[in-house]
């Protein structure tokens, strides 16, 4: 047998092995647990109009609808309304982490069933919600931040492992990037969009809704040439988010821009649960390991004690261990790579890694004093 014959199949085998290792690599499920908690309210918001209509005695089939397939099962009205109510209860249980696996699967099943009842039910935000719920349903994301975990501890049973094969997390990241990438690409390829015609026309069509803005703003927003540039900025923003999320160097910037992007959309268009869901899903881009950064706080000072409590309360992604420091020590944080920050730069760093404060604190990391401190700690 020649060397070439041996080397031929060995390379695909190595690639397969690397791919399997990537999918099966045990990683922290903390981000998915947090997303599970956040997804419940999105489901309730999504189901609310269906539920209120059903309680008023009106269901989708009372007016125009278009089934995807004639064989798709449809339920009697009362049963359909009951199913929606069950999904709402399941969504609450999912968020609380009560019978998490069953609750998440039930939520996914009903939301997906409802989506595919009619082509008229379809919206991008609902599709995204179904994808997210489907991936949460296959991930063991109820082992922390859950009533299930609390009951287990209370019963004195050993805790279940908080790590699990990474593939649902990778798929969620892929889907998250696809949402921005597909949207940006479709606009990039459409000359009307990229050239600014679409946004300009939409603003002109909605001219009456701009009355609350000052005249100069209306003048700018209705100026055709403004949209020549603005449309390109929008398209490149979406594409930057889609690509930037994949690299650790650009990830924080992409997350920051994505939040701004979603808030801008929420302020200018009716997108149902898309903004909330879009921002919530961004947590899956946190590095999937926990308690690998150390915060040292001097507990003798009241302010520092409060800060310690705040870090513990807001550290939803479990990124920090908080330990006491000797009296009189400044606030100190030790990053994964061993870099040590103290004082104000440490505070900026900590806040930039907490989900609720990250958006406000991330720009602080660009301040020269923080950058200098970081560089000095790396030497």
């Amino acid at each position, binding site marked *: 047998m020649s060397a070439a014959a041996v080397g031929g199949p060995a390379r695909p085998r190595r690639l*397969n092995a690397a*791919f*399997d290792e990537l*999918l*099966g690599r045990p990683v922290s499920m903390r981000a998915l647990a947090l997303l599970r908690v956040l997804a419940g309210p999105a489901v309730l918001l999504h189901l609310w109009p269906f539920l209120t209509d059903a309680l008023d005695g009106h269901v989708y089939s009372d*007016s*125009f*609808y*278009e089934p995807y397939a004639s064989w798709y099962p449809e339920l009697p009205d009362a049963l359909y309304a009951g199913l929606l109510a069950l999904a709402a209860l399941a969504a609450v249980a999912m968020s609380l982490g009560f019978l998490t696996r069953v609750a998440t699967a039930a939520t996914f099943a009903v939301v997906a069933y409802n989506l595919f009842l009619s*082509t*008229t039910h*379809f919206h*991008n935000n609902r*599709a*995204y919600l179904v*994808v997210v719920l489907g991936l949460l349903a296959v991930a063991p994301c109820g082992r922390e931040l859950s009533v299930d975990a609390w009951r287990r501890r209370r019963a004195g049973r050993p805790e279940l492992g908080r790590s699990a*094969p990474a*593939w649902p997390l*990778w*798929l969620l990241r*892929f*889907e998250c990037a*696809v*949402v921005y990438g*597909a*949207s940006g*690409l*479709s*606009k990039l390829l*459409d000359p*009307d*969009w990229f050239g600014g*015609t*679409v*946004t*300009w*026309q*939409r603003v002109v*069509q909605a001219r009456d809704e701009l009355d609350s803005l000052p005249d100069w703003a209306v003048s700018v927003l209705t100026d055709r040439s403004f949209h020549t540039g603005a449309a390109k900025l929008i398209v490149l923003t979406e594409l930057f988010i889609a690509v930037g999320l994949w690299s650790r160097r650009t990830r924080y910037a992409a997350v920051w821009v994505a939040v701004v992007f979603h808030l801008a959309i929420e302020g200018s*268009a009716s997108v149902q649960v898309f903004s909330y869901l879009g921002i919530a899903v961004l947590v899956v881009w946190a590095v999937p390991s926990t308690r690998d950064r150390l915060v040292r706080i001097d507990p003798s000072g009241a302010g520092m004690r409060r800060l310690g409590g705040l870090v513990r309360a807001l550290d939803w992604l479990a990124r920090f261990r908080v330990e006491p420091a000797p009296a009189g020590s400044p606030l100190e944080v030790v990053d994964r790579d061993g870099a040590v920050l103290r004082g104000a730069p440490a505070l900026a760093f900590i806040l930039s890694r907490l989900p609720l404060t990250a958006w406000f604190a991330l720009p602080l990391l660009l301040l020269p004093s923080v950058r200098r401190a970081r560089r000095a700690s790396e030497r």
Partner: protein
Amino acid sequence: MRVAARRVVVLAVVLLQLVFVARGYWSDHKEFAFQMFPESSTWRARVVRVTADGRRVAVERPWAGYRWDELVSVRGLGYPSVRHHADAGLDNQLAFLDAALDWVASHTPRDRETRYLEATVRSWHNADPPRVEVLRSGVREGVR
């Protein structure tokens, strides 16, 4: 076995998602293609019932106990004579209107005079000049 299943599931999801994204470029309904705010296109339509004796009656007038805006209350189709934004694109909007004509034709059993419904649609694709097209429901059985 578990490793192979995992590989198959992941590849299937990725492939399926990419197919949906590509399909969005030619399909009326762009499921899972995530094409957001695709057009500024607008449309309006004159929707009439064409009766067995050849009359053309606007659907804004209730008939046989039916009202168009109650029968077709979703996807911006309730008041077709008013110019609307096609928020998921013109092809998507007109596909819905076409399907709605068929649905109304087949879900109005008390109506014994309408042979079919017809929509004369005037649409503006982004900044293009307007285009006029006619959509018709299927002919209703038993009405001559």
